């Protein structure tokens, strides 16, 4: 594995630099120091959010008490409120549905296009490629009003989660096409040729040979599309006012910020409950993806 090679090479350096310090220990120290540093940076806001979500309301607004610990007893009341008084579970489900279908549509759109751009020669291929990438540069802040017109008049999807499913691929697809192009290019043409010589049609060659080899790429695309969909703010904000259709980001921020009242405990609880499962999922696929890449890398 490439990562092993890296370890070897850095270990070699360590041995040259400080022979008196055992290479294992020096590496460990550097690694652990680095890890602690990054953990503190990455987790400090998360920890604050977590602690706030368990603090009693009066504790949160009390400036005399330490921010990183409890003055009064911690409480689950904010989480209870989140589940009982808001539609949190509905929002979470909406988010899952929206992200899932966004990924599906992105793949349906991006895979053929990426293959075409990576493999096939046809007039204007390069221009199409550039054109697709350029569309990524068009910001949502510019488009959401015209998109509302389209979503309301022509397809009547406004105020439903399907509005987001239809629109999200506009910003996931361009980048995913590029990613997949790269992956497809790493698959040697000979493999496809061989399949076709064996009697497969072009399409069959793609389905039976190319796609299986590019599973890591497809997974990467899926992860990115999923995460981008979850992060999105402005489209979700504008297109959906029906509380039952809101994704979790909008649901939490809109129902728990009322006028100038911030329900901090519930907001933080909602934030963590929305983000942690995704992190776990992400981490799982990341592993898969990295290993797949290194196995699939062909010299």
């Amino acid at each position, binding site marked *: 594995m*490439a*990562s*092993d090679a*890296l370890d070897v*090479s850095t270990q070699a350096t360590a041995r040259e630099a400080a022979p008196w310090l055992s290479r294992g220990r020096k590496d460990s120290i550097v690694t652990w120091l680095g890890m602690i540093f990054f953990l503190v940076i990455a987790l400090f806001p998360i920890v604050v959010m977590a602690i706030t979500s368990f603090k009693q309301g009066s504790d949160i607004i009390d400036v005399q008490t330490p921010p990183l610990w409890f003055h009064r007893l911690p409480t689950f009341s904010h989480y209870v409120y989140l589940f009982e008084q808001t539609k949190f579970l509905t929002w979470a489900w909406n988010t899952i549905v929206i992200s899932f279908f966004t990924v599906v549509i992105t793949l349906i759109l991006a895979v053929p296009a990426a293959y075409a751009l990576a493999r096939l020669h046809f007039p204007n291929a390069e221009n199409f490629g550039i054109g697709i*990438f350029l569309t990524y540069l068009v910001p949502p802040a510019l488009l959401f009003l*015209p998109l509302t017109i389209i979503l309301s008049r022509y397809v009547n999807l406004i105020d439903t989660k399907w509005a987001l499913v239809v629109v999200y691929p506009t910003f996931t697809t361009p980048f995913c096409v590029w990613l997949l192009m790269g992956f497809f290019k*790493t698959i040697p043409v000979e493999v496809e*040729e061989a399949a076709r010589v064996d009697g497969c049609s072009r399409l069959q060659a793609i389905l039976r040979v190319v796609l299986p080899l590019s599973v890591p790429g497809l997974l990467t695309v899926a992860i990115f599309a999923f995460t981008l969909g979850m992060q999105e703010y402005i489209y979700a904000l504008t297109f959906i006012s029906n509380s039952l259709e809101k994704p979790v980001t909008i649901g939490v921020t809109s129902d728990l910020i009322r006028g100038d009242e911030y329900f901090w405990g519930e907001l933080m609880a909602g934030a963590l409950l929305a983000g942690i499962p995704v992190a776990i999922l992400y981490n799982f696929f990341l592993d898969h993806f990295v290993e797949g890449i290194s196995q699939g890398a062909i010299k």
Partner: protein
Amino acid sequence: MSLTRTPAAVEAVAAAPPREAGRLRRFVRGEAAFGYLLMAPVLIYLGLLLFYPLLLSIWFSLTDASTGQPFASWVGLKNFTDLWSNETFRLALRNSFIFTFGSEIGKAILGTALGFLLLRRFRGKRVLRALLVLPWTVPVALTTLGWLLLYDPTFSMLNRTTGAIGFPYHPNWLGEPVPAMIAIMVANIWRGFPFSAIILIAGMTSIPADILESAALDGAGFLRRFHYVIVPMIAPILFVGLLFDLVFSFTDLSVVYLLTKGGPENTTHILPELAYQNGIQGGDLAQGAAISLFMLPVFVIACVIMLRILRRREI
């Protein structure tokens, strides 16, 4: 890697029975059609949902559209010239660059360091990785609320914590121009550096192991290896990741909108957020569209340059 057929394969196919040969000719001719067919879905989709709204927005920017009357009368480039003479807009333009490129540098540095760290082997890596990815995976609107709590002038959670460990700098984070800019950049960097790390890891793991080994055995130090071997090989991936991230940062309004709304005194406006404020909440649709359109030229240029470089680097 060549995209054309190797001579051997062509011969093999040509030597096949006539039916195969005919099919080959049809393939060659049909390749263009097939290509267009494969491109069709994405082109139609983007045409309808991106190109058409874009045209509409361009139309808005050339008229005096307002939210009450989106289809109003032609004014030509007046919106653009007006913007250029507006101090707030120029500030927003400057801020957009500082915000994006500053964050990018921060993300690159932190992301690279983290990426290399994660490439090492050590116990508990999986768990730690899950934790380190949290800034990116928790939706930005929600983590920004967390930052709001940290930067809040009354609670000053950040200041109180750093004060407890003796850190001397305690500004009113969102209330002074420079700290506010730093504050939003920090929130943006924090959100994005795991992604940069992932890009780096992806790039690194695509480098064949033996190349790295041979470089190490040749006695090259880490930095030299990095510069002469690693970077050229992962450049394409880095470029694409970088460009994506740049565009994402440049056009994202969540962080600024939720933290400062452009304050204090218009010093942290960035283009997308200003476009939203003036165009939608202020009702001046034409101006909002014009502000947004200012974002395009910069990236069209950057994109074309990147694409040229990428094309040339292909081995």
